[in-house]
């Protein structure tokens, strides 16, 4: 996702058309980035309905703010930043409303995430069951992290953003990003220790 100032924004044409009122151009941008942003928001909220509603708000905000988009960054960086900020605000509100999310409320789909099921283990039911358990533990461990730590883990480990980009989006130093990641990894290691010892 990092912006290269020498490279033109690949969405320049779509953005220009969307700004002039071409709704199909904006639809094309939704289709292009909807799934990527879904991954970001879903891993931060761990809730399918919240993710859906938030994504609606994020794209609506981007649509209304298009006239303000100056093109200093790529469209994707711009909307990604909107998505991160709006999701963090949502998590703060959710925490105030209900004291945070308990693990019982965690979306069942997160617990049975097929992404973690390695196809090489499909033939081995015992191994597959352990992987499911590990995956469940990993998701639980992710939810036990603070919002700040879960955000950097989502952006770095899951979305693959470099430290500098995360620092720029979250408006924190790169050192803080590294420190949060280090702490979050220690937490995850500790939470998964028991299952790791059993071997998979």
């Amino acid at each position: 996702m990092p912006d290269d100032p020498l490279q033109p924004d690949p969405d320049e044409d779509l953005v220009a058309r969307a700004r002039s009122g071409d709704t199909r151009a904006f639809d094309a941008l939704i289709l292009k980035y909807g799934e990527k942003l879904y991954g970001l928001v879903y891993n931060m909220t761990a809730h399918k309905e919240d993710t859906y509603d938030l994504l609606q708000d994020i794209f609506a905000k981007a649509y209304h703010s298009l006239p303000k988009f100056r093109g200093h960054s790529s469209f994707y960086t711009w909307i990604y930043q909107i998505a991160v900020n709006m999701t963090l605000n949502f998590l703060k509100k959710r925490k105030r409303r209900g004291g945070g999310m308990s693990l019982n409320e965690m979306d069942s789909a997160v617990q049975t995430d097929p992404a973690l099921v390695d196809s090489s283990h499909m033939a081995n039911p015992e191994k597959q069951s352990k992987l499911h358990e590990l995956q469940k533990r990993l998701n639980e461990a992710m939810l036990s992290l603070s919002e700040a730590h879960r955000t950097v883990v989502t952006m770095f480990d899951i979305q693959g953003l470099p430290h500098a980009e995360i620092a720029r989006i979250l408006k924190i130093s790169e050192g803080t990003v590294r420190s949060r990641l280090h702490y979050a990894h220690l937490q995850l290691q500790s939470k998964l220790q028991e299952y790791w010892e059993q071997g998979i």
Partner: protein
Amino acid sequence: MKPSAEEIGALLALKRHERPEEGFLDDFLRDFHQRRREEEALKAGPAGWWHRLSSWASGLGASKWAYGAGLAYAGAAALFLLSPSPVQVQPTPTVPAKYQVEPAEPTAVEQLDAVDLRPSSQGTTGEQEF
């Protein structure tokens, strides 16, 4: 034994392949357009100006408080300037005016003196005293 940071990273990286359910984006686009139509209808209605004002204010960030304070100050100043000025008391003229002196009404005592308080008729059953 704990998993290493690299192993944790590798496990988390598998989550990159998470995708929403099939048909998600079709439903999403349909709802997105529906919502936009509703917003446009709302903006066209009488509540539209308030909606636009609140959207504008929410986009200002922290500077909205400065705008709010400025508006409140301007409102107070306008109220002060437009409010009616206090009534000026004109000094009474010192030149004596010509008055036609009317004879004063007789006082209540003088009126009583004029009234005949004698009993109009003598009672037959007893003497009356005044």
